């Protein structure tokens, strides 16, 4: 009797597991939005990213393969250890199938590693470090809308061409800052421009005056900021106070989000060159999407938030097409399917998970040129993906060789 029951049990579980392989684990798709809800990147990503994911799920119809979609959210506070714990818990205990947003480079790297280990898709919209699509790539990792490489390769050549041939870089002392500083200095070297000096400031910092003073004293033609969020906002404000631009140096924010410029204000921010992967006002499709986002969230989307929308939607489509939520299968499908959404233009995905799409160089408007609260940028140049992003074959990612 017992032997029969045991045999039946084993047979049932064998059938069950093989059934699961073709369907959805746990009979639902679980999307985990792991972001910064309370600290310096909360306005860049944060609640807006959650809203973007919700909008994507709603636009997709709320169900995939006839099963419900569940959204998990958590605040990683920009700490890699906290993010790692949450990611593990979500994957092991809550059946998370995909992790999105992942702002802050140290968090992005840590969580991508865990996703690779456990075969769960990680789509990074928020973190910038290009390392995500280089040696540390995984079979299930994606880097969606921008990275330090493209930021450096779009902004730097334009500034150098305008006469900025000596640079001083102010860097946030952590993974992202180092990455951006490294990419920028590589571009400078290729262009024959001079890197006069660099200084690394603690992350985060409220008072950058001391470091700006060093930049001013260096005599470099360009003072570049390799930091983000609140650090950039403080740097731009304090640079204006110390008369860096008035003194003849050019100020370049290698990474500035729409929310940062909105906070800095056009008075102080006018003329800043900004590289972005998405701008709400860039064309009709973007405007339509952004209007709906604004109605839901009350602010225009930053490129990170728009990216969370785009990546979540593409993920859901790929799950539908693949017929399963198994990480590696869906990841392969994601790289196969074309990306069609209001956020990315001319987009393809490299074997290393890097989305290659058009990037835009924009300039912050002067107060007189702006007609509404969020009318902050005017377009300068569109750079096609092949020029902006690193060729996957040269990234060092094992999947792209």
């Amino acid at each position: 009797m017992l032997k029969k029951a045991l045999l039946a049990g084993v047979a049932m579980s064998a059938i069950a597991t093989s059934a699961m392989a073709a369907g959805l684990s746990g009979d639902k798709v679980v999307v985990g939005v792991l972001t910064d809800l309370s600290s310096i990147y909360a306005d860049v990503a944060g609640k807006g990213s959650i809203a973007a994911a919700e909008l994507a799920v709603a636009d997709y119809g709320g169900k995939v393969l006839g099963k419900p979609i569940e959204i998990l959210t958590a605040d990683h506070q920009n700490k890699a250890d906290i993010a790692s714990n949450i990611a593990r818990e979500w994957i092991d205990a809550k059946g998370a199938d995909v992790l999105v947003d992942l702002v802050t480079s140290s968090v992005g790297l840590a969580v991508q590693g865990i996703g690779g280990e456990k075969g769960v898709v990680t789509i990074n919209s928020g973190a910038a470090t290009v390392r995500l699509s280089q040696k540390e790539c995984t079979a299930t990792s994606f880097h969606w809308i921008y990275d330090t490489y493209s930021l450096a390769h779009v902004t730097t050549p334009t500034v150098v061409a305008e006469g900025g041939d000596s640079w001083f870089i102010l860097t946030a002392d952590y993974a992202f800052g180092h990455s951006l500083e490294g990419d920028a200095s590589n571009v400078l070297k290729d262009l024959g421009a001079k890197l006069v000096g660099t200084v690394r400031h603690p992350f985060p910092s409220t008072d950058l005056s001391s470091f700006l003073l060093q930049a001013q004293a260096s005599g470099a033609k360009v003072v570049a900021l390799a930091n983000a969020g609140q650090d950039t906002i403080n740097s731009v404000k304090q640079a204006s106070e110390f008369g860096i631009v008035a003194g003849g140096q050019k100020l370049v924010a290698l990474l500035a989000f729409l929310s940062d410029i909105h906070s800095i204000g056009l008075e102080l921010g006018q003329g800043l060159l900004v590289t972005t992967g998405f701008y709400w006002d860039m064309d009709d499709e973007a405007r339509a999407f952004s209007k709906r986002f604004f109605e839901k969230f009350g602010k225009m989307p930053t490129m990170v938030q728009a990216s969370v929308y785009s990546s979540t939607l593409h993920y859901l489509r790929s799950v539908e097409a693949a017929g399963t939520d198994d990480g590696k299968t869906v990841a392969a499908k994601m790289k196969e399917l074309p990306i069609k959404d209001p956020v990315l233009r001319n987009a393809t995905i490299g074997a290393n998970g890097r989305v290659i799409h058009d990037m835009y160089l924009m300039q912050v408007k002067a107060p007189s040129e702006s007609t509404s609260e969020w009318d902050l940028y005017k377009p300068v140049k569109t750079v096609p993906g092949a020029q902006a992003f690193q060729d996957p074959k040269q990234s060092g990612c094992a999947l792209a060789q």
Partner: protein
Amino acid sequence: MFELIGIPPQALFGQLLLGLINGSFYALLSLGLAVIFGMLNVINFAHGALYMVGAFVAWFLLQQLGLGYWWALVLCPIVVGLLGIVIEKTMLSRLYKLDHLYGLLLTFGIALILEGGFKHVYGVSGQSYAVPSAFAGGTNLGFMFLPFYRGWVVLLSIVVCLATWYAIEKTRLGSYLRAATENPRLVQSFGINVPVMITLTYGVGVALAGLAGVMAAPIYSVNALMGSNLIIVVFAVVVIGGMGSIFGAVVSGYMLGILEGLTKVFFPEASNIVVFLIMVVVLLLRPAGLFGRER
């Protein structure tokens, strides 16, 4: 000699001056903290949040009521002071009979509530507050460009610190305050209203934080996190100066601002932690702080 250090003297003086400016904020905030701890024996964790409230009130006054910086300098400390008095009267005064720690927990909780509230309403990117037009621009001192506003910050903080120290150490009201905290019953038996004195002291202490907030608004962006970033360093400053010593708090504030400025030149990555390293050393060698007395 300067060539040996590897940095030209002009750059060094510039950084020292910047350090002095940061030190002004440390001094003002640690003064308030030291007054509250020295007089009330309360570890006021809400100090950073109240500094933030001061900055936000200044921003609010400008945005909604069109009242500029000079109004804010007067009104914000009063508003924050009143808020402090309300907190003290309704909540803090019940905890005096208990262990220090309850006061710490309460004020910590208040800080979290205030910060959470502002974060919820305004986000974290911060609001901009323009430098008052009277102080726009700056002057080239030769070794650096000094914005007028920052020079004003140093001046005002020195004046306020001196005035507060004088009021507490040299005036009659100050002597009543000091006596009231040493021996409340005896002082009360003389007919002096001790609870009112204590409430006022807390109000004045946090008003100083509110003033620091107004002064900070044009320089640092006005955001919900500005207090929490600063308060930990300020606590370290107070500990270094000596928990009960007002003079110690002020002097340490300026001194540590300058030391931090120097660190930013020679080893910038460590500039966030140098104050804590000094605190560890001071605690090991002189647990009461540089100017404190053993309690």
